[in-house]
């Protein structure tokens, strides 16, 4: 599904202009880094795609559908095709690590044995196998982050949005995570990663979209992390 953001302006009350005239097209299968200083609008841009936020002006088309036109149940089904790693993780605090993963699969009606198999596999891959019966608040920051990534990827979504997926990780783990994201991308999933991590962007070079004050200031194939991306 192609993501098309057309002339989007987003103003939060009373007068905060988070996005000013954004025009971005992300074809199916792209891998995009979203960079920019804090408060530049990265998260807001992602929330346009999940329809948590609707534009004040302009429109957001995903797979040709204007998101504004979707009804409540449509949106639920639409969101199942998108995996999101939220900046603040948003894990379900009343469910264990294991249950947090099975939940999203149960919600889309997958068969029980397949759920079990896939969950165990990904817990192992993320190094959370020994932590599977802990609740989110009992996990370390990095473990929570890996759980959030596992949850976002387990359903093989068409689009994967990852907001600062390595903020709480050490370099080695961050690299391992990036490799996972790239392998998912290789299978045809569109991946959008918002990040402040220079090392990651430079190591695994991909399309870079740089925001500043709610405007796109650079959009480059095989880009690098430039010093003013973060100033």
């Amino acid at each position, binding site marked *: 599904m192609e993501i098309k953001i057309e002339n989007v302006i987003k103003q939060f009350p009373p007068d905060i202009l988070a996005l000013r005239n954004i025009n971005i097209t992300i074809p199916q299968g792209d891998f995009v880094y979203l960079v920019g200083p804090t408060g530049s609008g990265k998260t807001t841009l992602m929330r346009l795609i999940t329809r948590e936020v*609707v534009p004040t002006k302009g429109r957001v088309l995903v797979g040709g559908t204007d998101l504004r036109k979707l009804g409540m149940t449509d949106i639920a089904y639409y969101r199942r095709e998108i995996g999101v790693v939220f900046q603040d993780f948003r894990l379900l605090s009343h469910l264990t690590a294991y249950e947090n993963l099975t939940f999203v699969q149960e919600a889309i009606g997958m068969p029980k044995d397949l759920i079990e198999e896939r969950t165990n596999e990904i817990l192992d891959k993320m190094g959370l196998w020994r932590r599977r019966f802990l609740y989110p608040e009992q996990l370390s920051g990095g473990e929570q982050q890996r759980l959030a990534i596992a949850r976002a990827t387990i359903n093989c979504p068409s689009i994967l949005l990852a907001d600062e997926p390595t903020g709480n990780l050490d370099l080695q783990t961050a690299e391992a995570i990036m490799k996972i994201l790239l392998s998912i991308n290789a299978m045809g999933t569109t991946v959008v990663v918002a990040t402040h991590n220079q090392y990651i962007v430079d190591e695994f070079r991909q399309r870079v979209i740089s925001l500043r004050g709610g405007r796109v200031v650079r959009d480059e194939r095989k880009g690098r992390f430039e010093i003013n991306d973060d100033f």
Partner: protein
Amino acid sequence: MTTFSYVLRDAFRLVTRNITLSFLTLVTTVAVFFLMSCSILFVMNTKHIVAGIENNLVITAYVNKKGTAAEVVADKIGKLDCVDSVRIVTPDKALEILRARLGNQADVLTLLDDNPLPPSVEIKLKNASAVSVVARELLSMEEVEDIVYAGELAKRLEIISRFISKFSFGVLAIALAVGALVVFNTIRIGVYARREEIEIMLLIGATPGFVAFPFVLHGSIISALGALLAGASVFLSYDRVVGALKASMPFLNFMTDRAVVMDLWLLLVGGGLTVGWICSWLAVSKFVRQAMRPH
């Protein structure tokens, strides 16, 4: 299938996870439903007692002495639907009663050349509202010379009975409202306590119905269970309580039909389930719609 089993498990988790909280809600619901059934039973018993007193209502009709006038009147009146029974009091019997009343001076009555007292018919009615009908009927008979009845008492009982009917509706309405409010409130606050979870679930693609259903189930279960337990405690203790009351107030005519209490119980559980379902649905659906609204 998996979806449904998740919903069941989640509703179950809602109940068990905060077992104290669920327990408190349950206790409140039980208390409310208990109060409710107590009011209902109180009203039913009062009506029953009033009906019992009404059953003892008597109209005395004095008839003329010609032949079988008393028998004719008794016959005619006895056929009316609202009449329970009739009894003829002959002049001799009436004189006997007067004699008893005069005590050791009763000898004076032997001086009467003829029994001056008229025969009469005592008519027991089924309910107070029938008094005026029967009275009019009696007066229209030529055999009847005069009638005497507790007109005031009859009217009073009728008014009280009608008032209790109205009152019972009021009590039921208030109790039902309080019960519904408590359930609604509990679910609403429960939803509020889990607002973050609900938002997250909706964000990762759970449908509104899927998110709402465990809450609705939770509310219905608690409410129905509350009604069930309240009904059970009423059902089990009713006989003993009425027994104790009867022992100290044998003159009052309590309701002792277990079937009625059983019906009340069933009604209560059905009502609890319905109320729980509607209230939880109202409580959760608005919230879910709100959480789905974009910024």
